[in-house]
């Protein structure tokens, strides 16, 4: 399993969407620049995301992809950029949420983190 992008099951996506509200991006935006530590983990729900390397499109991940969680946890740079396209919905998994899940040692997010 790639550490940069993991694909969650429908059930995992549903659990996370129950926990957190999605954010709708109305404009194209570089959520993560290549070689940066992600500010948040990104769960892709709807629309279009682009994975970039050296400013070229490497791939477009499928819905349900979770990006950058491992690198956020370990404070390491993501070796690719992530661009969110206009009218795309994502859920942000913040560092504080990860720290909380790690402290509680339970829940869907903790299971996901444990499998990374």
């Amino acid at each position: 399993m790639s550490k940069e992008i993991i694909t969650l099951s429908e059930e995992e996506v549903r659990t996370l969407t129950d926990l957190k509200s999605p954010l709708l991006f109305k404009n194209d935006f570089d959520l993560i620049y290549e070689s940066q530590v992600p500010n948040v983990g990104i769960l892709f729900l709807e629309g279009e995301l682009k994975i970039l390397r050296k400013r070229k499109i490497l791939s477009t991940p499928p819905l349900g992809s979770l990006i950058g969680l491992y690198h956020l946890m370990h404070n390491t740079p993501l070796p690719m950029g992530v661009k969110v396209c206009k009218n795309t919905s994502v859920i942000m998994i913040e560092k504080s949420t990860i720290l909380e899940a790690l402290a509680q040692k339970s829940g869907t997010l903790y299971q996901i983190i444990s499998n990374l």
Partner: protein
Amino acid sequence: MSIIKNVNCENCSSRGKGIFCDLENTGIKEVSENKVMNIYKKGHTIFHQGNPPFGLYCVNSGKIKISKVGNDGKESIIRIAKEGDVLGHRSLFSNESYNATATILEDAAICFIDKKFIYKAIQTYPTIAIQLIQKLSREMGAAESMTASMSQKNVRERLAELFLMLKQTYGIEEKGRTRLDIKLTRDEMASMIGTASETVIRFISEFKEEGILEQEGKVIFIKDEDKLLEFANIQL
């Protein structure tokens, strides 16, 4: 894979200037654990007008242009942020989309602190809320002054006022003159005072002829502040 050098909030050069400056060691350590630091290159965008906020940005170093695009598609520069400044707080707390775009002017080290942590930290450490209120009040005062300046002053006065503001924020005293430690294009200056770049070029030439400004390459020096105050129509 390398680990980005992560400056602790305890040792941050901006610590005394931000909204966390009144926090004791435990609080500042918590902020430090929950933040993410990144280096942004010139031209990178921190946040974009119309998009939803999901955290705060604390500037450790560098300069960031905060600009807004109007219905006519024209860009107006609202302000230039620097070390110690906090960005994105207004939209974050009003639960509105960003009403401006933040673009890096000079390579910057910026820390991101997520919304969830900020809300929790405010409850635990009310001094953060007080600092935020003070910051918002100062910004509102500055916005009111800007509105008054735009409606009451002519372009020449506004440009003189802009140089005074740049001197106050980015001025470095050097041999009887002040070097402005920021490089702005004529277009950017024009956008900050609501005029055309040709007009800015004309008045800068006038300021140079009057001995108010000097220029070496792209660096601008302020030579005569008293005259600049006079040109800005500011009574002290």
